[in-house]
């Protein structure tokens, strides 16, 4: 119960922050132009934009409109694309969940396996090399991995598309074809993300296992050559909580998307959307995406807390 109260408090704080933070940025959303190539916006159009979106209202008056809309699922209108923020989010969210969420799960599985191997067979050269390679590749900026993959697999070998979430304007595909098309397009950006996410899981898994494996009876068991189910289970029980926590956190943040990868691959996800909203000062869009992303994380956290409490009743008393 107290936990719920705390989460409600957090949600309120987040909503408030979401309103305030974007507006602390210098610069107006109504000024035309973005990058170097932008041209000039006439003042009449500027005034109209200001009026349409009530940017001329004082800062104190703006949140009432925003808050009044929230319960109805009205997140306001984007100042740059003039579409409802809620609809934009609904369009983008599935792509991000698919791409980033999928990559997180894959990375957790891969990283977990790798960490497991590193802990149990840490002295084997192959395992060490593999771990080092994973960490090394994972250390590269996503942008770099992405471009390398594009150059190799898209431009030269032409095996995978360089961008987009689906083949543009492909009509009348069967469901299977459509699904494969989606997977085909997600392959390179997904791989980029998996490479980036894996090391954290591997390291965490290994470091959580190593102390357990040193425990006396496990050492004895291993000395006897036993890897009985009980030993494995004991090791897992110690290693899983931190790994599961990381997985949960990463899944929660997946909703915010992966700005860099989505941009390079022109993937229509939440991350790039939010980045553009920040750089164009599209307040309602920024708010909307931040809100959804924050709520997702909070929900995951609540969930993790509840699971922790379920697994270990003593946690409840402390919360």
């Amino acid at each position, binding site marked *: 119960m107290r936990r719920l109260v705390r989460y409600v408090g*957090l949600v309120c704080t*987040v909503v408030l922050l979401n309103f305030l933070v974007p507006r*602390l940025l210098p610069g107006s959303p109504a000024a035309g132009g973005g990058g170097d190539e932008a041209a000039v916006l006439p003042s009449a159009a500027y005034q109209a934009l200001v009026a349409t979106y009530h940017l001329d209202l004082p800062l104190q008056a703006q949140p009432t409109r925003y808050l009044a809309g929230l319960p109805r699922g009205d997140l306001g209108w984007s100042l740059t694309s003039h579409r409802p923020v809620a609809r934009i989010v609904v369009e983008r969210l599935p792509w991000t969940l698919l791409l980033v969420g999928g990559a997180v799960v894959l990375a957790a599985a891969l990283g977990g396996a790798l960490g497991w191997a590193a802990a149990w067979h840490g002295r084997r050269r192959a395992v060490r090399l593999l771990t080092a390679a994973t960490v090394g590749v994972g*250390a590269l900026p996503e*942008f770099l991995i992405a471009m390398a993959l594009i150059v190799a697999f898209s431009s030269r070998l032409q095996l995978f598309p360089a961008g987009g979430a689906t083949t543009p304007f492909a009509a009348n595909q069967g469901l299977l074809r459509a699904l494969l098309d989606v997977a085909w397009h997600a392959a390179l950006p997904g791989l980029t993300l998996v490479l980036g996410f894996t090391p954290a899981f591997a390291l965490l898994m290994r*470091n959580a296992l190593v102390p357990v494996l040193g*425990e006396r009876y496990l050492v004895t068991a291993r000395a006897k050559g036993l890897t009985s189910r009980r030993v494995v289970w004991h090791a897992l029980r110690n290693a899983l*909580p931190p790994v599961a926590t990381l997985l949960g956190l990463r899944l929660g943040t997946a909703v915010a998307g992966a700005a860099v990868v989505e941009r390079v691959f022109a993937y229509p996800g939440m991350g790039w959307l939010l980045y553009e909203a920040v750089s164009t000062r599209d307040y309602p869009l920024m708010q909307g995406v931040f809100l959804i992303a*924050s709520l997702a994380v909070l929900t995951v956290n609540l969930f993790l807390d509840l699971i922790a409490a379920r697994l270990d009743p003593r946690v409840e008393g*402390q919360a």
Partner: protein
Amino acid sequence: MNASSHLRRRRNGRGTAAVGGAVLVVLIFLALAAPLLSPEEPGRIAGDPAAPPDPRFWLGTNALGQDLFSHLLYGARTSLLVGFLAACLSTGLSALVGISAGMWQQGQGMLMALVDLFLALPQVPLIVLLVVFWGPGFWPLVGTLALIGWAAFARVVRAQVSVTLRREYVEAARALGATEGRVLRAIVLTEVAPLLFTKFLLTVRWAVLMEATLGLLGLADPGRVSWGLVLHQAFGYPLLFLTDAWIWWVVPPAMGIVLVTVALMAVGQDVDLWLNPATRPPA
């Protein structure tokens, strides 16, 4: 575990760690000595734009004709400093908040609420937002990364502390009258230290990476050569991938980043073994 296997294990770890440490020392030396070692001032337009390597410009020049080898050295300086500073600050914060929350029952709710708040805000956009707010620069970057990077691990640390405190031997120690300070020092720190070390490693890696990522997004401090800035300028060069330019322009700073990470990781393995109560050699 018998003595010989233990020795083998330590030697093995030490070998890796020695190599990792040596690499780090060399990198740090190169970074510190950049002004002495660089053949050119990083800002000086010394040659033709986008020239391939030659005896004078070992790694060729960038699109403005600045020496890329000098940029590599100066870049190491900035990127490593960002990484270490941000990692130190944020690991400190993680430890402080995580251990406090684990040990101090009354404050736990409040501290964890703070953690949750930080965790709830999406990371990369928040960093972008903060950097936009403060303007691209060295200290804003370090500050932002430190501020964003601590929360997730504070949670992990708290979890570890809670688990540890519930271990039978801790409860026994407490029952035998061990003070909280002693419990903290003797048990929690040793159990938490490996985690924190992992956190430190991950954060150095993450911070060096974020520096590069922000650089690629065009948010690096343009007045201070860093690996991120070098990469950003490389990607601004239209023929980067249509010619061989990427080999001497992108690969060296990328390898630098990889080297830092792998070296840290190698050092980490040994320190990990030493710090872990389970694997620590008997005194």
